[in-house]
């Protein structure tokens, strides 16, 4: 008699496609997954607990290390929360610098996603192309902040450093260059028959599922829900720009791919407008006290990070450290749907489904 047996396979924490130290225990029957159990926490650093002993400015570098692919948005969400509590008015020039850096970060983050997603699918070249463009963005941000990944750029009340001479020009030149490269990306990948077969209909979920699992960002928009905090709850100066929120209806990996690629274009559009409107001079830091003390009370703010809705909750008892700090980390929430999606898929699709969610382990584990 032929006897078949289910096999328990440990994917990760050391696995090329788990994008860090994510572990997935899957039960496979042949190559078909019957059960998947994610195990997280390998990168947990206790940011929220550590923050309780830190002054607000000292917490900013910790936020860099959560979603390290778009550290600017994380910087912003913390500063924004503190500013909301203190009721600080941010100078215009600082707001524009913030939007520019955040949108550049969004482009860089989506580029990394694009490259690594295709690397997971088995195409090696896109990865290198994407990183070439990302390198330019990183150099731009490096000129501003002196760091390439963990910028520690924003402060409560504005930003730390002003744009050096010629920086705005460089950003202006980058936009058409990036648009040109995007065309090349589409030529290389988007129409490719093998690629379409790999992603179409894979990891599909409905609008209801997405809402029930509290997905956000592209993972939500790919099911047809037009929800982007930059549009729906404009923070900073996003109400001054004209841009679209790309959505799709199908909710599979292919629509997520399309949405992200279009978001790069929309971000470039925002950057273009921001560069045009950029005030020639002005303060980059509002008048804030030397030691920042959030008034007694609590606040929750949320913004749109490249991965979804990132939120920051602060409960303060009026001291210079927060009483309690909590981040709503979009990668963590988006990852929750994974076991449901993986049931019945095969090993090759596991990589596609996981890749299409776009997680950053620093953020998942906090």
């Amino acid at each position, binding site marked *: 008699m032929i006897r078949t047996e289910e096999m328990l396979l440990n994917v990760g924490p050391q*696995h*090329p*496609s788990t994008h860090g130290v994510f572990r997935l225990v899957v039960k496979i029957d042949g190559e078909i997954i019957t059960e998947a159990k994610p195990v997280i926490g390998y990168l947990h650093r206790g940011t929220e607990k550590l923050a309780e002993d830190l002054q607000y400015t000292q917490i900013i570098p910790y936020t860099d290390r959560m979603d390290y692919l778009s550290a600017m948005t994380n910087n912003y969400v913390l500063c924004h929360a503190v500013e909301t509590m203190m009721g600080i008015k941010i100078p215009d020039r600082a707001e524009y610098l913030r939007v520019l850096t955040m949108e550049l970060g969004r482009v860089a983050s989506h580029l990394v996603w694009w490259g690594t997603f295709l690397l997971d699918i*088995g195409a*090696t070249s896109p990865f290198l192309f994407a990183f070439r463009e990302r390198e330019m963005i990183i150099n731009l941000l490096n000129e501003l902040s002196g760091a390439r990944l963990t910028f520690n750029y924003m402060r409560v009340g504005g930003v730390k450093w002003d744009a050096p001479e010629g920086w705005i020009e460089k950003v202006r030149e980058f936009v058409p260059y990036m648009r040109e490269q995007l065309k090349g990306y589409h030529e290389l990948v988007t129409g490719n028959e093998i690629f379409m077969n*790999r992603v179409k209909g894979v990891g599909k979920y409905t609008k209801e599922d997405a809402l029930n699992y509290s997905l956000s960002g592209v993972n939500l928009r790919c099911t047809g829900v037009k929800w982007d905090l930059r549009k729906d709850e404009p923070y900073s100066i996003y109400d001054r720009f004209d841009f679209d929120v790309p959505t799709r209806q199908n909710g599979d990996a292919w629509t997520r791919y399309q949405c992200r690629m279009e978001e790069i274009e929309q971000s470039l559009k925002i950057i273009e407008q921001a560069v045009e409107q950029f005030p020639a001079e002005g303060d980059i830091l509002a008048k804030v006290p030397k030691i920042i003390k959030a008034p007694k009370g609590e606040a929750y703010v949320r913004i749109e990070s490249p991965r979804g809705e990132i939120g920051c909750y602060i409960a303060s008892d009026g001291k210079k450290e927060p009483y309690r700090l909590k981040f709503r980390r979009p990668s963590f929430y988006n990852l929750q749907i994974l076991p449901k999606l993986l049931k019945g898929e095969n090993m090759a699709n596991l990589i596609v489904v996981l890749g299409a969610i776009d997680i950053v382990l620093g953020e998942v584990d906090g």
Partner: protein
Amino acid sequence: MINGLLESSPGILNFGIFFLLAFVLLMVVLGFVTYAILAERKVMGFMQMRMGPNQVGGRWGLLQTIADVLKLLLKEDTIPKLADRPLFIIAPVIAFAPAFMVLATIPFTDKFQFADIGVGLLYYIAISGISTVGIVAGGWASNNKYALLGGMRAAAQMISYEIPLVMSVIGVILLAGSLNLNDIVAAQEDVWFIVLQPIGFIVFLIASIAELNRVPFDLPEAESELVAGFHVEYSGFRWAFFMLAEYVYLFAMASLTTVLFLGGWHPLPFLAFIPGAVWFALKFSLIIFVLIWIRSTFPRIRADQLMEFGWKVLLPVALANIFLTALLKELLKLF
């Protein structure tokens, strides 16, 4: 010369000459593999806007592969505790030996061929199938789940693609009227078979990439899914043997493609003054380049799609090609 030696009575001299020739071929092949790996890395580097190896052996990294091989030789040889030891040790050999054996029948020029076998093509296909056994055995013996999955994929893939591969060359055999590779090249004196057998050529090229386990058909290794597939537990020189087998097959398959479809050593018209060996090398390099090009362009296909494509697309197309070729051949005879 070789036939003369084969017919003379066996002796120490015969043995010596054959042994020496085989050694020379091995060295040629190893030299090729060394530089094919370098070429692959350089060409892919060029396509991906990076430098490729440029430190060891000057600007072109000419000694890079040699350094890599030396490193592999010096590495500790690890065998997993729970592995099937004898099978684990012999698997790389089973994978490599046929790769080298098939080279015997390839006619590199009209004079330089080791064994002029009547059924050379059949020999090639039959022997190359043995390598799969090595890969499956390696995957099984490692006692690793990823390796097992990789080995299983290799078995399924190689069997599914061997068939369209064989079917696609039947058109060539029909036209040449022989299974002997020398006769096949001779039949292409006027027109190369790539012109007469375009469908056959395309099917053959796709199936041969699948046979070679290269992108987009590199499922048995599938780095991003199965870590390294069947050779995940191999290290040091045993691992090098698997790699060697892969690249020797690249050499063999490119040679076979040249022989079957690109007219072997035959020159282009009016360029007959260039020797046949150069022509062979040129066509051969072109095939290698195309394979590298494909590798840096395409993503990997999925296992079930691979099977579907092999059985539902390639095989029917190859069969239709045989039918069409036979029909046209008979029709043309009438006039």
